[in-house]
């Protein structure tokens, strides 16, 4: 009857309770760090208005509020209407009127562009775009 052989390597690799505690502590710290670094207001829908590249207004579209109507003083004055969950350009003195034709926009990643004014309204959400798309053609 032989003597049972016990490998030193196998003994060294067998996890103990303390190994589990150390791993759990570091993973917990990583999760806390991940939560701390997460963009604020997860899922919030925001609209940013830029005029020739400069931000001129921002709207929080995720919280209930009275509809806001704002005239923008630009080469062709236009009226922005924002309410919970959506935004549009409802009037514009620009010649083509394509920005008004766009209508309401309510999805993250959506855009309204008034080319004659070089004005862009961009919607974004901390959760990213719906369907996880990177870009839109059309």
């Amino acid at each position: 009857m032989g003597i049972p052989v016990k490998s030193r390597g196998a003994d060294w690799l067998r996890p103990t309770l303390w190994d589990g505690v150390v791993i759990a502590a570091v993973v917990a710290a990583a999760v806390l760090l991940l939560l701390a670094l997460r963009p604020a207001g997860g899922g919030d829908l925001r609209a940013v208005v830029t005029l020739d590249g400069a931000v001129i207004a921002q709207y929080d579209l995720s919280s209930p509020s009275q509809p806001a109507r704002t005239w923008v003083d630009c080469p062709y004055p236009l009226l922005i209407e924002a309410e919970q969950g959506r935004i549009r350009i409802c009037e514009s003195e620009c010649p083509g009127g394509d920005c008004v034709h766009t209508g309401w926009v309510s999805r993250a990643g959506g855009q309204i562009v008034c080319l004659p004014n070089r004005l862009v309204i961009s919607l974004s959400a901390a959760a990213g775009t719906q369907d996880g798309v990177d870009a839109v053609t059309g």
Partner: protein
Amino acid sequence: MKRQVFSVCLALAMGAALCGCTGGEARKTVQFFAMDTTMSVTVYGEQAQAGTAAVQQAVNGLEAALSATRAESEIYALNAAAGMGAVPLSQDAQAVLTLAGAVSAATDGAFDCTISPIMVAWGFPTESRHVPTEGTLAALLPLVDWREVAISGDMAFLPAGMAVDLGAIAKGYAGEKCAQTLVDMGINSALLDLGGNITGVGGHSDGSPWRVAVKDPNAPAEEVLCVISLLNQTASTSGGYQRYFTEDGVTYHHIIDPATGYPAEHGLLSVTVISSNGGQADALSTACFVMGEEKALALWRDPAGLPAEFELILCCEDGRVVVTEGLESSLAFKGEANGYTCEIARR
């Protein structure tokens, strides 16, 4: 003791991997106006900053050469010298005009960069949109003929009265040109949105393709027809919903049929073209809209004379979305809820 050190190292590695999920990858996005549209460029990696700057510089350079409205451009000079003499062209202007000619030939003139006088008559370039008289269009139609653009070496000549506008091809060409610039810099992950012409440089950093949504032409601000995958290709879309006006209760869109001088009405609401050749994708989206479903699919089946193969998404007025078979495995159809049906076209 060694065991504890090993455990700590293992746990730290797991923690680091978990923290990596927050998206620490370098990336830079810039938005700017050029070529009469809005552009958005995102470059990933260590050279993101330099990459976006290079793209912006390249686009501005191309606009300076190819614009039909900027007095210092080569195309402006070509139009101004129509009937008087030849003008020199840069390599880019030659390349775009040559490609425009190839697409015109392959589409029997459904794409024609000499349609500029007709577009001006409709007031689209000048934002004074109105319906021109029949007499005006009849007088201008003889000036629309891509075969009259004479290119010899680095010189080009236009007959009197004619004018070139590269607006329906230049953005796609710019996308491909900028993509090459980024690749030459060693950048292999970037996404260019040049006025709705989407060019993917490589894919995501993990190698997965870009996901590009195609707008629903009946609800372009809110709904999508489908989502496609893009790797080192350009997706370009043309549709009557993009620019239009209403006069006396009738709506007129901006995609003019070079054969008639009136907005093209051949049963399509929008056309999306996917190709490795950006300029071709851009020009073909207009051409196929003008041609209609049957002729567009015939061209897809036999793309003789075109520099690259391509795939199509045709949104028809009757609610069918016709997708060519090369996209079948990677396309996610989203149009059911809005009453669309999806058909696969095969060669």
